């Protein structure tokens, strides 16, 4: 059978059209009928939300006892290891001896001149010299740790919390070098043997990842206040810095407050009422 060029081109054109149109039709079909009851992800209705989370620490209300309680509560709630804890021999046999200079810090006590090195003064009021200053991750508005993270394991959430995805952390420790507050610690060893009571509500970390305070984001998502706030007897308040009617903004509006190393331009979200 002999085919003319003309009839061949006709058939070719129609087939090309058919090949092109089939996926288009399928797409239209899918769009109109929709996948049956597609899955949806939402926040829990009781979750606490904010435009930008911030923390206000009232230094007048912090005593040694309260500060100690806060540090312990944070450790417990977030499964932060304490290297002074003696590992259970049965559960963790042959644990290497501990280097007691190692620490994993989420919230900890610091002297005024270390917390605020730029504000050191010979004639500083005596009360500040002995006061325990609780320092933690500042949840910076302009976080240097996020900029240096090569895997985006550290990121700033839309609500201002600087978070870590421990799954993605490769342990390069750039963030530790970048953080001007020393708020990040590295797991040089498996932390589990040094956690007295593992809280099942939050995972532990593994060897080789960096960790830091996450403002108890998992607790906020369940409608709970951060662990430190809960035991602070009113010394720590957490709330929305962008909301003029929030508790934290009221506190900041009433009293004089300072932030750590403000001149670096990281815009910390943790305020200290003096």
């Amino acid at each position: 059978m002999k085919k003319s060029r003309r009839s061949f081109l006709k058939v070719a054109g129609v087939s090309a059209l058919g090949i092109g149109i089939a996926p288009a039709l399928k797409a239209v079909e899918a769009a109109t009928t929709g996948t049956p009851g597609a899955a949806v992800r939402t926040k829990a209705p009781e979750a606490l939300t904010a435009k930008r989370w911030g923390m206000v620490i009232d230094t007048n209300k912090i005593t040694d006892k309260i500060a100690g309680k806060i540090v312990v509560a944070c450790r417990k709630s977030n499964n932060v290891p304490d290297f002074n804890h003696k590992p259970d021999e049965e559960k963790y046999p042959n644990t290497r001896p501990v280097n007691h200079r190692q620490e994993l810090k989420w919230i900890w006590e610091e002297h005024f001149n270390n917390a605020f090195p730029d504000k050191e003064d010979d004639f500083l009021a005596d009360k500040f010299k002995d006061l325990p200053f609780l320092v933690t991750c500042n949840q910076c508005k302009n976080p240097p740790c996020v900029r240096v993270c090569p895997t985006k394991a550290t990121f700033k959430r839309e609500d201002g919390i600087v978070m870590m995805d421990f799954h993605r952390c490769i342990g390069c420790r750039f963030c530790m070098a970048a953080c001007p507050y020393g708020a990040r610690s590295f797991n040089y060893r498996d932390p589990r043997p040094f956690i007295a009571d593992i809280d099942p509500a939050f995972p532990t970390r593994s060897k080789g990842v960096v960790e830091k305070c996450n403002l108890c984001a998992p607790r906020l998502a369940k409608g709970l206040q951060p662990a430190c706030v809960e035991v602070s007897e009113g010394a720590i308040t957490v709330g929305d810095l962008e909301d003029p009617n929030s508790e934290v903004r009221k506190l900041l509006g009433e009293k004089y407050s300072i932030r750590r190393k403000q001149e670096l331009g990281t815009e910390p979200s943790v305020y200290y009422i003096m």
Partner: protein
Amino acid sequence: MSKNAIMAGLAIFVIAVLSPFWFNLGGTDAAPEPELSAKAKAAEKCVLDKYDMRANHMSLLDEWRDAVVRDADRKYHAANGKEFQMSLSTGEDSCLGCHEDKEKFCDRCHNYASVDPYCWECHTTPKEINQ
């Protein structure tokens, strides 16, 4: 002379190539079935249906992790109408809340397939804590 050498070489070659198959003959077990806990059996429906779950649970977990950590979304309203906590190991309606026994549910297949996910380096099982 050369013919014998070739035949011998060929025989050795064939034996060498086929030896892994002979070695495994009769030694392999049937693929293990994950054992459902009473709670999982009672729930009847998982997040996706059985075969989808079997094939794609790892990508579902990956999706869940990103949703929880990055977007702070923690509730999953599945296509089958059920609601879940997007969590591997915490809470009643998380994965482990229903599939209570990790050894019988997760590890059996993972061991058989020789995959070694590092979930449990950080995530805890209730069993492990109470031990």
